[in-house]
């Protein structure tokens, strides 16, 4: 028998954040499609906006590009979505 000690670093406790309530439906709502701006994400998010707008004509889909470099916040956009939007689609993660 060999008894070995655990090599893993202890993880600190994390503050867990509850998710936002979901929408009853997207009818009459405004959904932001936010482009993170990796290569070719413009084409993809534009196509998403086109398809979603055709399929859900009672919903407003606004496509926006996140300002600033990857990994950094765009507080103005977040404030705008908080004020005018009901939900967000963010992509793509690489």
């Amino acid at each position, binding site marked *: 028998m*060999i008894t070995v000690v655990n*090599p893993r*670093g202890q993880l600190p406790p994390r503050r867990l954040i*509850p998710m936002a309530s979901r929408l009853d439906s997207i009818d009459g709502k405004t959904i932001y499609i936010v482009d993170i701006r990796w290569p070719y994400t413009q084409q*993809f998010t534009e196509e998403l906006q086109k398809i979603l707008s055709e399929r859900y004509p009672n919903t407003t889909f606004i496509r926006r590009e996140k300002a600033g470099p990857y990994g950094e916040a765009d507080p103005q956009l977040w404030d705008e979505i*908080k004020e005018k939007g009901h939900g967000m689609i963010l992509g*793509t993660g690489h």
Partner: protein
Amino acid sequence: MSGAIRLEKLGKPVVYVVPDVFVCDAQSSAEDNGMPGLRLAILPGREYYARRINTKEIEPIALSAIDQLISGLTRPLSEEEERPKQKYLKPTETIKIEAESYELALEKFNQLFIDQHWGSGLPLIPPTKERVDWMLTGTHRSPQEIIGTVIPKNGIATIEKIAINSVMAGAKPEYLPVIIAALEGFLDQDFDLLHMTTSSGSFLPAIIVNGPIAKEIDMNSGIGLIGHGWRANNTIGHAIRLSLINLGHLWPGENDMALIGRLSSHTFFTFAENEEQSPWEPYHVSLGYKKEESAVTVSTIGGYTSGLTILGGGAVEIWSAQSILDRMTSLISGNRRIFGLFKRGQANPMAHPSRFIFVIHPELALELNRLGYNRESLQKYLYEKTCIPYENLTPQEVKGLEDRIDASRAGDILRYDLIPSDRLPIFQEALQSGEKVPVVISPHDIALFVAGGFPGYTFAMSYFRVSHVTKKVEGV
């Protein structure tokens, strides 16, 4: 990812779109940010990457995501999503491996550790308490001392945990202070460890040791300096590899997304400066450390920036000091592309200013010394030789430089792209007739080490100008 969490906190439902190959990474990151249930719309990666180039090609991929997007925004939250539960418990301190013989137990131990993602893929030495205590004799520092937390999951790095991983790597106690110093370098605020260890760009560290400890522990700084066959070089690197896995809770394809893995992934490029054969003061002394002190420099290199470029030397090649200097300047000058590629508000790795490490073989260092160069004057030569006359700049390059200066002044810039405030006047004054614009932000972004044997090669390694840190070896 952080934007998605931010909006959820503001009360807006979010769906994060991600190709399937990055799902594990996205889930891990969501967990690290406190929202393990963040909803994803998953794209078929094979088709997405092949067809994303235009809207016509990408249409079927976008169509495949629609139902997931609507469901992600409207499907009621589960109890777990509404009230997420802490996942992590205190890990078991000891693990018992039982088998009919020591050989079978050793095999069982190695299989268990790789299955748990606690190993590197190479055979490991079992970290028994006795062996860890023996490893800890290599430092005067307390086993309970915390040197920081290791990303991506912020595992706590104690001296004891580093010693455990050092045992597993096959290191000796006398190597432990070097291993600790290297990790302190990685945890320094000026080192972007997250990018080095998780980026798809496939980077690796160079770990370069200076001072008397290098000789005391028999580190190689001569022929074969980044190769195998030297216990100190190889197991120090391996101990750091294992510490990054186990303290950071890092694993390839899960949250380490290096697409091709890494060069020398198990031991990294770990070597000592050849101080005995160098005509110049040791690198750490040039930074202000005393000659009798030892220090470790850690630096991100490689990936898609430049793994290792041989610039001249060798046993059969004809070379001169000038021919190698010309290749050095040519390599640096190639970075001129950063001028025109910078666009304010965009993260473009091709626009990040670089830092270069040149490892100069002793024969060339002696010749350069004979020609009147020391480390500082050679840095200055390379910096000045690669400046671009203002008259030769294209309008796009001038615009990029002006934008970079404005963004740096406003603080509205990624730190990888930043011109620091003390260098801003140089760039501002350079943008006029008769002046020259530097390709590297500062002469200090050209780090010069002397290493290798007789004969040897001079080689270059590079990355962006951050993540190059030197730490004193303590607690010997």
